[in-house]
C-alpha cells in the first residue's frame, strides 16, 4: 500500500488541512463571538482572531507559491 501512497505526505496534508480548514474557521467564528459581545475586550479578542486568520491566509499563499 505505502508503495502507492505517500503516507508521510498524506498525514501532513490532513493535519495542515484540519488546522487551516477547521482551525482557522473556528478562530474566525470566535472573532464573530467577540464582535457581538459588545465589550472592548470582545473587540480586542476579535481583532486578534482576525489577525490570526490573515496570517494563516498569507502563510497558505506563501507555501503554495514558494514551491
Amino acid at each position, binding site marked *: 500500500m505505502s508503495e502507492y501512497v505517500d503516507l508521510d505526505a498524506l498525514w501532513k496534508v490532513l493535519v495542515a488541512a484540519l488546522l487551516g480548514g477547521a482551525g482557522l*474557521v473556528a478562530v474566525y467564528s470566535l472573532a464573530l463571538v467577540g464582535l457581538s459581545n459588545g465589550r472592548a475586550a470582545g473587540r480586542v479578542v476579535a481583532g486578534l482572531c482576525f489577525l490570526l486568520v490573515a496570517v494563516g491566509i498569507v502563510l497558505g499563499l506563501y507555501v503554495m507559491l514558494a514551491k
Partner: protein
Amino acid sequence: MDANTVLLAVVVITALAFDFTNGFHDTANAMATSIATGALRPKIAVALSAVLNFAGAFLSLKVAATIATGIVETGAITLTVVFAGLVGGLAWNLLTWYFGIPSSSSHALIGGVVGATLIAAGASAVKGAAIVSKVLIPAVLAPLAAVLVATAGTYLVYAITRNVPDGTRGRGFRYGQIGSASLVSLAHGTNDAQKTMGIITLAMITAGTIAKDAGTPLWVIVASATAIAAGTWIGGWRVIRTLGKGLTDIETPQGFAAESSSAAVILAASHFGFPLSTTHVCTGSVIGAGLGKRLAEVRWSVATRMVAAWLLTLPAAALVGALAWGGADLIGGALGVTLVFVVVLILSAGLYMASRRRPVHAGNVNDEWTGGVAPAPVVRGGVA
C-alpha cells in the same frame, strides 16, 4: 506555412479550448456555494472568480511538469498524441458539463493522453504504477479528506456562533465565504492554467519550435490565463447548480466552512506534493458541510451519480483520446488532425445547441432543486 506549423497551431488552439472548458467547468468549485447562499450575485461571483483565475495564472511561473509526462513515457509523446489527449479531455469536460456533473479536468486530460498513448505506442508506454499512485488513489483520498475537514469546520462554526446575533453572524460569514472562495479561485488559476501552459510548451518542444530547456513563452502564459479566465467568466451554470443546490441545501456558515476547507486542503496538498483534484476536494467539502450541520441532509443520489462519473472519467476520456488518435492517424498528417478538430467542433456545437433547450443560467441557477440539472420550466406571472 508548412504542415508542421499547421499541426502545432491546431494543437495550441485545442489546448486553449481545453483550458477554456477547464475554466467554465470549474467555476463551480470556487463559486457554487457563494452563489447558492446568496453571498454573491451569480454574475458578480463568476466575474470575481475569472479575475482571480487570471491573476492566479501569473502568480507562479515555474513550468509545471506537465501532468502527462509522469504518466506516459516521454518518448511516446508526439504532437498527434498531445492533440488526441486534449480532445479526450475536452470531450469529457463538455459531456459532464451538459449533465451538470462536477468532474476533474485533470483526470479527463490524463485519461485522454493515456488513451492516445495506448493506441499510438502500446501498453508498455503507459506507466501503470504512476497512474495508480498519482491519479487513482488521490481521487479516493481527496474527497474523504475534504469531507473530514469540512464536517469538522461546519460543526465548529455552528457550535461556536450559536449565540451570536443573526446580523453579525450573517454578515461575518458572508465576508468569510467570499474571502475563502476567492482563495480557491486564485489557487485554481495557479494550478490549472499551469497545466495548459505545460501542454503547449511540451507541444512546442515536440515540434522543435523552442529548445528543450526553454521556459514558457510569455504569449503562452497570457493566452492560457485569458482562456481559463474567459471560461470561468462564462460560468458553467449547470455544474454550479448541481454543486450549490443539488448536493445539499447550503447556508452561509456552511458555505464558509466548505470553501475554507477546500482552500486549506488544496493549499496543503500543493505544498506537500500530494496531487489532488480541485473538483474532488470541493465536492467533498460541500458534502462535509451538509454532514456537519445535520446528518443525512446530503442528497446521496446526486453524490452517487457524481462518483459514477468520476469512475468513468479515465476510461471514457481514454476512449475518446484513442478514437481521436486513430482518426487523425488514419487520414494522416496535419490534414487528419485538422479534420478531427473540425468533427470535435461540430459535436461541441451540437451539445451546446442541445443545452439551449433546457438552459441553466444566472437567472435560474438557484431555483428549487427538482431532481434534474435543468430547473423545471416555471410559468411566471401565474398565466398557465
